[in-house]
């Protein structure tokens, strides 16, 4: 596993995960910038994501849905805050109503991605900030995250193969 560290800072409102890859930052940047590559990993195998819009520019937005095993289609959005290719990216990630508009009753998470050269490869730091713990609880209560962790066993199988 390439995850090198995980840190939850004060009161659990921030979560930071650091991972290292052998590919250089310019290559790792593509897994964020190319929607077809992003779709390969944003959702778990049982909830694949489809990005209908993906504008990786400051002020740009993305629109996506995930397809569940029973045909459910929860929708999400990104609002891009800053982009510094291939070094950093910051966006808000939230849920949408069925008509694609941001759902104000659902949690929003701010995600900051940093890609640093690490030898010939990349060290990727992802920091997620929640506005309130209630939001975090809501995310977990929704079962979306639990659905995702249920897919973990399969991922480990794929990686081990």
């Amino acid at each position, binding site marked *: 596993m*390439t*995850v090198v560290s995980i840190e939850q800072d004060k009161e659990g409102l921030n979560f930071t995960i650091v991972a290292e*890859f052998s*590919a250089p930052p310019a*290559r790792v940047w593509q897994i964020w910038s190319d929607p077809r590559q992003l779709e*390969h990993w944003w959702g778990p195998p049982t909830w694949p994501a489809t990005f209908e819009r993906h504008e990786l520019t400051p002020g740009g937005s993305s629109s996506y849905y995930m397809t569940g095993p029973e045909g459910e289609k929860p929708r999400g959005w990104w609002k891009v805050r800053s982009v510094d290719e291939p070094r950093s990216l910051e966006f808000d990630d939230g849920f949408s109503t069925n008509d694609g508009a941001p759902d104000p009753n659902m949690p929003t998470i701010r995600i900051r991605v940093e890609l640093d050269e690490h030898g010939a490869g990349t060290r990727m730091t992802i920091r997620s900030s929640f506005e309130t*713990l209630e939001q975090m609880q809501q995310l977990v209560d929704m079962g979306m995250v639990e659905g995702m962790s249920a897919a973990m066993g399969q*991922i480990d199988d794929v990686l081990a193969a």
Partner: protein
Amino acid sequence: MVVGSSDDVDRIFGALADPTRRDIVSRVLRRESSVSSLARGYAMSFAAVQKHVAVLERAGLVMKERRGREQIVRGDVVSIRAASRLLEEYEEMWRGRIGRIEALLDDVADEQAKEMHDDRGQH
């Protein structure tokens, strides 16, 4: 304690934000302990340790009961699990994503290596 409202969750994370309190929780989860014996383990006053225990008690992470002259502190396993579950779920999600990114980067690298190999084969 059943973790229900966001106030409960705020109290739990607030209580666990302090390293001494995290240490107290891990000690009393393993073995119940009196406040005075806990206090001997830290370079701080009995009153300071007692305050930390009170914060943990309000968050529902530990239970305190009086036995004779001693106040005995025990960890509340159910509450502690509920608190850590939130972050674990989120962590699992990102571990999954990073595993898939790794697989994706490896796949492309494999394909490129194969193409280079094929190119060489043709010439």
